[in-house]
């Protein structure tokens, strides 16, 4: 309770807002690559929050979440690129992308309603793979997705004449493409976080948590588990769809390789590592797991030089090794996540006794 008071006070909000606005410019000191990494971190925050609804709130283990990201990304790519010659604006594509992702979520959810825990996991995993393989192969007889070559030259986000790619001068400050995307993403993230908070504390959110804790009991007290599960999938998927659209616009290029199983697993790791079901924890997990491999990419080489004077181990292999170790260690010493919800912490403390 103390912390939320701090965060809700004007000083707290002012400080946080200031830090958030300054962050992309600080990061740019190290190069635009860091701003891009920030952008990706926020995209993954969207994804982690979406998955949090499915896994954290409703307790449905989804290993194919990346499929919704893919649906959103390809919707943007198909509706705003030379591929079909369509160039629709953002306010048309994002809702369509989110809607299609919702539909995909319901499609995924329907056959899984009777499945328990780990059976659900493998079916959702299969679904993710099915979507990816379709994307990789729908280039004949009609070329829908252009197959493994992917779709290039995708339009960036634009509001009228204001394009999000390239550098513009705002109030005398030079703002680059990735930095503009950062602000767009932060704005959308605020929206998503507010929606998540409202959901969590609503009747629907509590119903989901009831299903997660004990589905039979939930049914017994009159919760329509079938509809609520489908709703969880649909809502979670919609966030993925929105993130996918922005991803497509930002990168200017999509290919099926970006939507592999390992991505789904990474997002699940972000949710669990951060603190399942706890929104601040999930955000932390997403940012940490996106930024850590990149920090390691830049840092492992120079670190070895500094410590040992030469490269003992290939930086590339060492990077992923350290990442894996980080996952294991965090889970070992903080099994409920880095920043679990207060209820979880109480549960853990009780279990320890």
């Amino acid at each position, binding site marked *: 309770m*103390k*912390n939320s008071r*701090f965060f809700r006070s004007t000083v707290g909000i002012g400080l946080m807002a200031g*830090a958030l606005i300054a*962050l992309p410019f*600080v*990061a740019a*000191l*190290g*190069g*635009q*690559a*860091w701003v*891009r*990494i920030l952008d990706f971190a926020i995209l993954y925050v969207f994804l982690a929050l979406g998955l949090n609804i499915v896994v954290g709130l409703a307790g449905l283990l989804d290993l194919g979440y990346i499929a919704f990201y893919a649906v959103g990304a390809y919707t943007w790519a198909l509706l705003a690129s030379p591929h079909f010659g369509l160039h629709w604006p953002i306010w048309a594509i994002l809702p369509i992308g989110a809607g299609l992702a919702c539909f995909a979520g319901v499609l995924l959810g329907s056959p899984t309603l009777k499945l328990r825990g780990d059976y659900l996991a493998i079916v959702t995993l299969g679904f993710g793979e099915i979507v990816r393989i379709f994307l*990789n*192969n729908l*280039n004949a007889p009609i070329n829908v997705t252009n*197959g*493994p*070559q*992917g779709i*290039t*030259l995708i339009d960036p986000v634009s509001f009228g004449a204001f394009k999000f790619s390239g550098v513009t001068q705002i109030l005398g400050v030079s703002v680059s493409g990735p930095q503009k995307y950062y602000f767009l993403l932060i704005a959308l993230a605020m929206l998503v976080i507010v929606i998540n908070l409202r959901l969590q504390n609503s009747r629907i959110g509590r119903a989901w948590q009831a299903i997660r804790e004990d589905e039979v009991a939930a049914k017994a007290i009159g919760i329509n588990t079938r509809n609520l599960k489908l709703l969880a999938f649909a809502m979670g998927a919609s966030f993925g769809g929105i993130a996918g659209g922005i991803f497509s616009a930002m*990168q*200017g*290029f999509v*290919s099926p*390789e*970006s939507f592999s199983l390992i991505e789904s697993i990474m997002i699940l790791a972000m949710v669990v590592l951060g603190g399942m079901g706890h929104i*601040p924890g999930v955000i*932390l997990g997403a*940012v*940490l797991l996106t*930024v850590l491999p*990149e*920090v390691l990419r*830049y*840092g492992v080489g*120079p670190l070895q030089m500094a410590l040992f004077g030469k490269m003992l181990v*290939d930086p*590339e*292999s060492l990077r*992923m090794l350290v990442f894996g170790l980080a996952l294991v260690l965090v889970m070992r010493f903080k099994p409920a996540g*880095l*920043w679990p919800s207060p209820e979880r912490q109480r549960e853990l403390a009780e279990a320890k006794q």
Partner: protein
Amino acid sequence: MQAKRSVVALSVAAAFALSACGQKEEPKPVAASAPAAKPEVVVKLGHVAPMTGPQAHLGKDNENGAVLAVEELNARGMEIGGAKVKFELINEDDQADPKQGSIVAQKLVDAKVNGVIGHLNSGTTIPASKLYADAGIPQISGSATNPKYTQQGFATAFRVMANDVQQGKSLGEFAVKQGVKTVAIVDDRTAYGQGLADEFKKAAEASGLKVVATEYTNDKATDFKAILTKIKSTKAELVFFGGMDAQGGPMAKQMKELGIKAKFLGGDGICTPEFMKLGGPATEGQFCSLPGMPLEKLAKGPEFKERFTKKFGAEIQLYAPYVYDAVMVMADSMKRADSVDPAKFLPAVGKTKYDGVTAMIEFDALGDLKGGAISIYQYKGGKLEYVETLGGSSIESAKADIKADVKEAVADVKDAAKAVAGAATAVGKEAVGDVKDAAKAAAAAGKDAVKAGAAAVKDAADATKAAVEKK
């Protein structure tokens, strides 16, 4: 609790700031201040390839080619724009993943490299090329063969070997030459494999071959028995594989295990020592193609091979010579433009006319190699044996060969005429006049014939050259 959370949040921000600060200390081009000593400029060249994953052996090979080139350039010592130039290679790993490729490309752009060599895979080169184009950094790839790379129309995109349009076409023509009527195509569903297989299919069908089966796999598979069994039932005489050695080798082996007698043909992806290693004795007698001419036949080839194996103690896998040439072309362009500034030496790259290890390198309007030739090889006795060259700069060598042959023929005719004349004198002086006349006529006729023949051949060579240049 509250303190802990703030600490966590702050440490995340701190990690960011620290890394950002760390970046500031990256080496910047050094301009010496002392006017007396020649100023030294560091030219940073980025090189990107998969250093981890199934194609890591090819990535390392590319890196070796680049490292060799940079070392030789530094040993030679170049002077550009009045300053001594030191080349520095920044090597990055894109894991053959387009997303990683874009991240790494942005990293290189941020580091303000003067040029980029790479990437290795078409699937990563194409998206990264946009980033380099936006930043105006010249990019030369030594291995990305997908035609789309240059078709995007970026002024900064170049490649130093033939692309898949040329490769697929040559392979299709070669298949027809093998006398087969039916062919089965397998592609590995990557940007490279699918592109190559499609071009081959077009060329094969245009030449009248019947494609009886099109099967697919992926770039991580090890078991192909299911699709090979299907191909076996179609009784195809040739199996074409668009993909890499890691799949091609086991595929050839499994073909043999299933008793499939068809010939196996593939592109540059399987023209590596790995293919032979992974496929074992089943690779004997199979064909593959490589851009350019075989190293042994090129003027500078064998010597490059020796230098390479001496330095790295390893065989050349595939593209190392092309990457080497790419670095050399980059340096040569800087020298010609007398500047290391990308904006200034970019136009010079387009006007390159550099005699490299792999070929005489000239670029066409799109950035493709002019007159890119494709050579076909066959695995024989555990080694790659050169079969023939189709298209491109082979015209030059063919012309040279023709000239030599014609010269020889003329000389032979002259000798024959002399011998006849000599015999005539031995017969009798009366007949001499007649015989001399006859011999003269014969020699003249022979000369005319040879001339006509040579002219015809020259016309044919010119026509082919024109046709190739039209592409």
